[in-house]
């Protein structure tokens, strides 16, 4: 890094703009502008032309179209009776497991995660029904809140995942592959959460409420009948991607159509809910598109600063092993996640981190899943953890309490990161066995 002063100014502007609360998308453009002024050769007037060229080509992107469609699908199902169905359909099957209905939180989040790409929406949908029901049955509050906040993070990992689309677009990797790669780690993580609840309740049998009365098999099945179309929708969307029948975008269209059909059959599709779901999806995807447009310009500017190359060779100078590098990145992203939301953290850092991990010989698909699990952990750490905010709004507990009861789940996630680092095949074997062309 030859221009130390200019680099310091550049990083200072970055921290100042983001930290002072300027909207993330505008901050990224402002920082990139500064970088271009300091580092890019050529006339001042060219900066804007170069900016607009990259913003245009990154915005008018076929790959990106999966994003608004998956968001819309989640928005439609968010407005159906799904949270009720999830609880009623799952509860009868859980009463024999140690920890009983607490598992409805975890499995409910897993299922909702498979139709929504956002963890806050997952927490909100599942919790809307399960919090009052579990409280009425006197389940320990610590676990009701903790499992919900922990399992809610699955929304980011289990496809469709907004953050995986953003990552895939940023580093130019197949979104289909990333989605399929997220499936097994998501299930592993959900199983670990369930194992934690089972272990906890076996150790403290006195704190669990008595079992619900046994119900005959037919009645149980009747209760969960409503869940079957949702499960079919999930299987259809993921199966068509895995089978190579559809690209992620095409699967998203099927997802939207299925979601509309489902809510029409349920009777919750009205003009009002249609309009709200569409406008909600428009806003969320515009919000993300603004960040991505800024990030595209920032990536261009970063190239001129020489920071990514400089940092990559600086890191290479330490001769870190792959595991040491991953450990360092884990700590870095958890710290970053304390101040930034996941999507901003990913787009802001990938221009710098990508050369680093490529040099270390780390696979970009594997890294995407690793990154999302780590960013998930940041969702439940204070001071900026979106799941914590959502739960604060829903339960009235303060952030400190929610963070405290989420801590054991956070540790479970640390263990999950350890697992996918030591056994990378957990991530890689499904995408490696995928059929056909993937887009």
């Amino acid at each position, binding site marked *: 890094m030859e221009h130390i002063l200019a680099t310091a100014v550049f990083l200072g502007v970055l921290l100042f703009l983001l930290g002072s*609360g300027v909207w993330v998308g505008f901050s990224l453009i402002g920082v990139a502008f500064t970088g271009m002024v300091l580092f890019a050769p050529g006339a001042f007037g060219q900066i804007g032309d170069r900016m607009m060229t990259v*913003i245009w080509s990154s915005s008018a992107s076929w790959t990106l179209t999966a994003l608004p469609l998956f968001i819309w699908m989640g928005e439609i199902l968010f407005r159906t009776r799904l949270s009720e169905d999830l609880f009623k359909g799952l509860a009868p099957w859980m009463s024999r497991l140690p920890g009983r209905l607490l598992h409805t939180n975890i499995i409910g989040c897993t299922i909702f995660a498979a139709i929504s790409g956002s*963890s806050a929406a997952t927490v909100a949908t599942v919790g809307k029904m399960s919090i009052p029901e579990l409280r009425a049955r006197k389940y320990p509050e610590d676990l009701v809140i903790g499992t919900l906040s922990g399992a809610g993070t699955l929304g980011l990992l289990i496809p469709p995942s907004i953050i995986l689309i953003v990552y895939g677009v940023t580093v130019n990797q197949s979104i289909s592959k990333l989605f399929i790669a997220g499936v097994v780690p998501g299930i592993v993580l959900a199983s670990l959460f369930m194992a934690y609840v089972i272990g906890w309740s076996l150790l403290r049998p006195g704190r669990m409420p008595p079992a619900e009365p046994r119900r005959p098999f037919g009645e149980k099945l009747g209760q969960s009948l409503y869940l079957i179309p949702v499960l079919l929708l999930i299987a259809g969307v993921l199966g068509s991607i895995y089978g190579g029948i559809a690209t992620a975008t095409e699967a998203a269209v099927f997802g939207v159509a299925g979601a509309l059909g489902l809510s029409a059959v349920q009777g919750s599709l009205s003009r009002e809910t249609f309009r709200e779901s569409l406008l909600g999806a428009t*806003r969320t995807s515009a919000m993300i598109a603004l960040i991505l447009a800024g990030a595209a310009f920032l990536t261009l500017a970063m190239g001129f600063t020489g920071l990514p190359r400089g940092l990559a060779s600086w890191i290479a100078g330490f001769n870190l092993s792959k595991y040491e590098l991953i450990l360092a990145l884990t700590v870095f992203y958890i710290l970053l996640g304390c101040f930034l939301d996941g999507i901003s953290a990913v787009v802001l850092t990938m221009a710098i981190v990508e050369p680093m991990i490529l040099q270390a010989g780390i696979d970009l698909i594997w890294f995407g899943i690793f990154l999302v699990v780590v960013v998930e952990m940041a969702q439940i750490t204070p001071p900026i953890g979106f799941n914590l905010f959502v739960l604060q709004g829903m339960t009235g507990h303060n952030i400190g309490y929610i963070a405290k009861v989420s801590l054991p789940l956070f540790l479970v996630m640390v263990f999950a990161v350890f697992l996918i680092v030591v056994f990378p095949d957990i991530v890689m074997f499904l995408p490696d066995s995928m059929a056909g062309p993937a887009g």
Partner: protein
Amino acid sequence: MADFILDYGPLAAVLAAGGFALSAGLTLPAARFAAGLYRICGAAGACFLVLIGLLILLEIGSRAAAVYVPGLKAYAGYSMAASAFFAFAYTFGHRAHIRMSAIIGRLTGRARRIAEIWCLAASSFVTGFVCWYAVKLVAVSWDLEDVSESTDRMLLWIPQTAVAAGATVLFVCVLHRFVDVLRGADIGDQRSADVMATAE
């Protein structure tokens, strides 16, 4: 004529947008008109979102029927850009754009107001800059009769006009808000806005 538009088009767009934003901040009829403009652009963004879905359905259908329709993927990409840019201002109005609130969320009173004024001043500069060059991009593409390299052979200034229009309305919206806050408008609670942005 072409040279004139190339040289002065972006300047004219930024000046007109700035002037309109200023009047929207100062007079009620202009403010009402501006609010309607943001809403209509939001609705346009929503329509383009639906259009993305329809184009992809058409793509799937035509592939299944073994009929080749050129350029569908490119059209879906243009709709993506149009959907996002048209909706930027509407999204800003709903406070759904994300910002880092760790520090400003803790400020109150005068300090909070000064921080907000700084944020809006910086954002007005950024959006004005983007507006200028988005309009210039259209003018240049129009002048050179730039054609898409993909199978659609679209004249690029057509979809780029949607982007320029959206960028201009976003500039109007941010500057309008800036004037409002300078004149003492309520700032509101940022933290709850952040949560809504993700919950939605």
